[in-house]
């Protein structure tokens, strides 16, 4: 382990990056490479585990330990690693198909257990690597290779799903907003348990402009509802206000600043965070970005290892000879 501060270059592997020109993954990669030195963690103690998909090529391009595993299973493999090696910092890189289609079950179980994983879901609302079928986050009606007449499935709202799965840290950011993305990575890294980050990522080849509403200069400001702990929840044009048991959006023009709900990312009750997640429909007209929820709960790996320490402390370390000779025995 080294003491000299590391740089972006130290985290850049020698592998040539193989995404399509203009792919949002490039921006995310670059942001990650610049951010990692900040952690002050030696490269050898960082592991990136991914599934399969364009996004899952990510680990190859970082000069840390990495496993490009199989489709949908990264959270399971990463859980085994994180539980058995609490000394490591483990990132999971996944896509909307990898994490929410084939890998949905492992994702929600990792979140409820609160395994110490930083899970980055690159959501391009399409299957990129397999050349353009719809995904569990594709808007209903999307015409793709596998849905020439338009898809019929109601998409998942990844934030709602994560909150429904007991996640302790849930955030959303956008590939091309490096500052915001980096801030989220920073907060996620500071969080003890599972951190779930949905990153809107543009796939210029199979679903270009999926997020133009929140990336185009003319529409983004009005669409992005900034979630900042302790700050009123609003976009350039709208604010979040209460209405009975529900919350709703009101034009800033028509309300008083004081009516706007102040964001509390540490609210022990995930219900309000959940309500916020419902503000964004497939149309992306209103999209909360930032940290929906960030609460403390013991991490799974630390609980597992503490329990073991406790058992060994109270019962003493196991003695193989004793074990083999336990129970009813007899001499011949």
């Amino acid at each position, binding site marked *: *382990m*080294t003491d000299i501060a590391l740089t972006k270059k130290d985290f850049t*592997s020698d*592998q040539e990056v193989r995404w399509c020109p203009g792919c949002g993954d490039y921006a995310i990669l670059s942001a990650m490479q610049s951010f990692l030195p900040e952690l002050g963690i*030696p*490269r*050898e*103690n*960082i*592991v990136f585990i991914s599934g*399969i998909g364009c996004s899952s090529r990510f*680990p*190859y391009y*970082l*000069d*840390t*330990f*990495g*496993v*490009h*595993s*199989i489709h949908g*299973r990264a*959270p*399971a*493999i*990463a*859980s*085994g*690693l*994180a*539980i*058995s*090696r609490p*000394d*490591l910092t483990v990132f999971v890189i996944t896509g909307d198909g990898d994490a929410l289609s084939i890998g949905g*079950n*492992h994702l929600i*179980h990792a979140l409820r257990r609160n395994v110490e994983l930083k899970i980055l879901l690159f959501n391009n609302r399409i299957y990129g690597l397999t050349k353009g079928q719809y995904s569990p986050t594709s808007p209903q009606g999307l015409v793709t290779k596998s849905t020439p007449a338009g898809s019929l499935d109601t998409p998942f709202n990844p934030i709602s799903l994560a909150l429904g799965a007991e996640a302790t840290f849930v955030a959303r950011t956008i590939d091309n907003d490096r500052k915001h993305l980096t801030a989220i990575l920073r907060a996620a890294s500071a969080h003890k348990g599972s951190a779930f980050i949905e990153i809107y990522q543009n796939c210029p080849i199979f679903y270009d402009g999926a997020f133009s509403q929140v990336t185009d200069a003319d529409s983004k400001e009005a669409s992005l509802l900034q979630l900042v702990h302790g700050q009123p929840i609003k976009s350039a044009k709208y604010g979040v206000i209460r209405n009975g048991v529900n919350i709703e959006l009101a034009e800033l023009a028509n309300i008083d600043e004081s009516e706007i709900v102040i964001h509390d990312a540490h609210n022990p009750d995930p219900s309000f965070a959940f309500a916020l997640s419902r503000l964004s429909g497939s149309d992306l007209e209103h999209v909360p970005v930032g940290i929906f929820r960030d609460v403390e709960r013991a991490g799974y790996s630390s609980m*597992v290892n503490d*329990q*073991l320490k406790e*058992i*060994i402390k109270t*019962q*003493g*370390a*196991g003695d*193989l*000879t004793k*074990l*083999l*000779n*336990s*129970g*009813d*025995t*007899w*001499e*011949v």
Partner: protein
Amino acid sequence: MAKPVVALKSVIIRFAGDSGDGMQLTGDRFTMDAASLGNDLSTLPNFPAEIRAPQGTLPGVSSFQLHFADHQVLTAGDAPDVLVAMNPAALKANINDMPRGATIIIDKDEFTARNLKKVGYEVSPLEDGSLDSFNLHAIALTSMTVTALAGINISRKDAERSKNMFALGVLTWMYHRSTDATQAFLKAKFAKNEDILKANLLAYQTGWNFGETSEEFVTSYEVAPAKMKPGKYRNISGNAALAYGLIAASQQSGLRLFLGSYPITPASDILHELSKQKKFDIVTFQAEDEIAAVGAALGASYGGSLGVTATSGPGVALKSEMIGLGVMLELPLIIIDVQRGGPSTGLPTKTEQADLLQVMFGRNGESPVAVIAASTPSDCFEMAVEAARIATTYRVPTFLLSDGYIANGTEPWMIPDVAALPDLSVEFAKTQENFAPYERNPETLARPWAIPGTPGIEHRIGGLEKADKTGEISYEPANHDFMVRIRAAKVAGIKVPDIIVDDPSGDATVLFLGWGSTFGPISAAVQTLRDNGEKIAQAHIKYLNPFPSNLGALLEKYPKVILPEMNLGQLAMLLRARFLKDIISYNAVRGMPFSTAELVEVAMGVLHD
């Protein structure tokens, strides 16, 4: 004047009753007494697939069979000499296995019209003479127990529950044993509940007294100790031995044991046992499914733990894709398959050997793995250690096959000396310049075990084909062909002990071959055959992939090779393909071990055709 005591060479006794009647416990206790008296023995529990089917119904019957003798015991025995049937269902479910003249002890209180009807007895078998050919003891177990416990303040239900101890008492007397051990056992078990303890002790004693005093029994029996290798023994089941073997491997390798598992019959007890042994710093991770279980184990292996997953056939099917990744990543991984009746959900509580081809070939592409199989309950210990040796030395997913028969069956086990266990210490890759993750050890062809946390060897691996040495992604045709062959060569080159043939006369022409849990029945059959002057050789394959290097020569040597399998001939197929040798298969897929008698008959047919 005391009743006469008759000496017997061996006894097969079966306890049968409702799931709720505590037959497993009764059997266990009776077994422990036989064990500590120095008898050799073998047991076979038989559970219903339902947790507790309705009382008194056939599906609800649970049984436990014990075979103990004054000589080596190789199976739980074919036909019981004694049946203890706690109700009509237990009688009906087991009567067909009883030879004429056998002893049958039943609780006549349970033979009510209602209970008889439940299992379709028109008239009571106690009255229609259908049991005349047996030595029947119809005892009022329940009522006598309840009466005896009248003084103790427990519910009638609890009083009735103690009847299994009454029965145990009777048998303890019948086989001329001391009551001390069981009394001690009960005291420990019910330490927290005095009344229940009193009840059990009294029921047990009353049963013993009943045997001693009543007219019902005229003689008691004695089975002398068996001549066994001197040493310290304990009785052990295959699943317990397997769990202990894994712990031993962890201790001997200095690797932390990580079990990723999802419960499934009959493998769950491995998870249960290891969960109890956390003081050995074992991580037991009950995953959300089998895929996550093996995935977590693989992730732990990647991190430098001894990654293990334990399951049964359906679980193996689910794990297959992840095991394929293990083949590509070339990391140590132990997959335990405690086989059960298939296909699909099949017969979850019954035994079978039909997963061999699945573990060999159940993955996409050329995906070679090591495969070994345990042959007896206690052998599970040694084979678990072997699985660890192979997996860690060759960095390859390694299957250890067991099955429902040896997993739940028990036998006396001479407790090994820990000092004598093999050293399994491993070497992780060290910090170095231009580290090549797929540079191989020229001897083992294993790649380095390069775990996170080691400075300077940061690298990326994955499921795509990798370039030789560097491990980088490669779609290069020649490289793929090379890597496919070297992965195969690595597994083919795994060092395994030669197979040993047992051919006393030295000139037998028929070889009785086997693998896995058929060892007991085959050995018993071979012994019987030899006792009858037949010449027959025996060999048992414990290493299925790769095969022992002398196997081909062995098959060459014997014109006729008999191979009984609890499947439709899976190993036979592998042998035929590999050695182009005709194998005489004998297959039965009944969810039960072979009987000694049927194997003797098979062999006689071959010996004298």
